[in-house]
């Protein structure tokens, strides 16, 4: 029927800590996303189909440039910042420099609240910066980023019928988003039970808010 259901969203989670990988996997599953976890930035690139070598991705190469055929479409990458070898920041850069994958939203997680680090990541194109430990309530921030990419993809598709149909298609997706919300009332209510202070979640630097708004208005 063309409804966008959350089971269609697939998140790639990257963390070198086994405990944290298990956590983020469950957090994402509980939020009804499909999840793939990997333990390093280079494995993430491998999974995406980007070569992890000195060879840079040629932006002029034909659009089907991935070396390995990527069978799953990734709608969001969530990665730990502090990892041996390739850091989350390095991974973010590689993704944003890649013609094929730069539109994939990237979220950074870190156990350390370092404003300079946060700014750097947001400047490089990260959509969100989550302080660890990540909570269920934090994950509600992910959907808008994934929806935006999905909606963009839908509107980029060649129209099967005439273009007048495009608007109704998008409206249908918006309607289904509203339909989905009742299923996740549980998630919406979590913040009430949790004793966390809201300010701890995401650093509300001046950069993060305007950047989010910029992205929204550009749609």
């Amino acid at each position, binding site marked *: 029927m063309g409804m966008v259901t959350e089971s269609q969203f697939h998140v790639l989670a990257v963390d070198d*800590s*086994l*405990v*944290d990988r*298990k*956590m983020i996997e*469950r*957090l994402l*599953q*509980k939020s009804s996303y499909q999840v793939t976890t990997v333990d390093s930035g280079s494995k993430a690139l491998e999974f995406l189909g980007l070569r992890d070598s000195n060879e840079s991705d040629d932006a002029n190469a034909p659009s089907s440039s991935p070396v390995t055929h990527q069978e799953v479409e990734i709608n969001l990458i969530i990665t730990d910042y*502090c990892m041996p070898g390739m850091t989350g920041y390095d991974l973010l850069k590689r993704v944003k420099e890649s013609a094929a994958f730069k539109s994939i939203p990237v979220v950074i997680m870190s*156990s350390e609240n370092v404003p300079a680090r946060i700014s750097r990541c947001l400047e490089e194109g990260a959509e969100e910066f989550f302080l*660890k*430990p990540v*909570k*269920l309530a934090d994950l509600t921030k992910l959907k808008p980023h994934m929806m935006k990419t999905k909606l963009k993809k839908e509107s980029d598709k060649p129209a099967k019928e005439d273009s007048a149909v495009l608007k109704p298609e998008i409206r249908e997706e918006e309607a289904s988003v509203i339909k989905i919300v009742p299923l996740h009332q549980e998630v919406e209510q*979590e913040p009430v*039970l*949790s*004793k*966390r202070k809201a300010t701890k979640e995401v650093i509300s630097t001046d950069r993060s808010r305007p950047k989010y708004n910029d992205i929204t208005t550009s749609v």
Partner: protein
Amino acid sequence: MDTLVAQLQRQFRDYTISLYHQGFLDDQFTELKKLQDECSPDFVAEVVSLFFEDCEKLIGNMARALDQTGNVDFNLVGSSVHQLKGSSSSVGAKRVKGLCITFKECCDSQNFEGCVRCLQQVDIEYKSLKAKLQDLFNLEQQIVQAGGRIPQVDI
């Protein structure tokens, strides 16, 4: 008249609350419980089990590094402490996490005796938490076996 189930549930409630009040567990442990459901009925036990394995491994690394008399790589110790701090924070192991903070400071200042002390304390602390959580899980099992529901405990 107090049924067996009611008694066990009360024990469970009291024990859980005491673990929080004595600082063994924090809010994050509550978050872990939220992630457990019919799809993932043993999630909490699985994660804490991974955490304790992590403790053993990392403490082993730290001990080996500190054993290199005269040639201790404090960066290596510090990096293991950082990892341990991360995973203890993720599961709500409040005391372990607190010790890691002190431990990290000792690494940063290359305080050998401090590091050795912290290592001993962290070792004792994670084992203590492991035993307590085992008791908690056993209580849960007993409740279920007696036909009862595990109560939701609001801290």
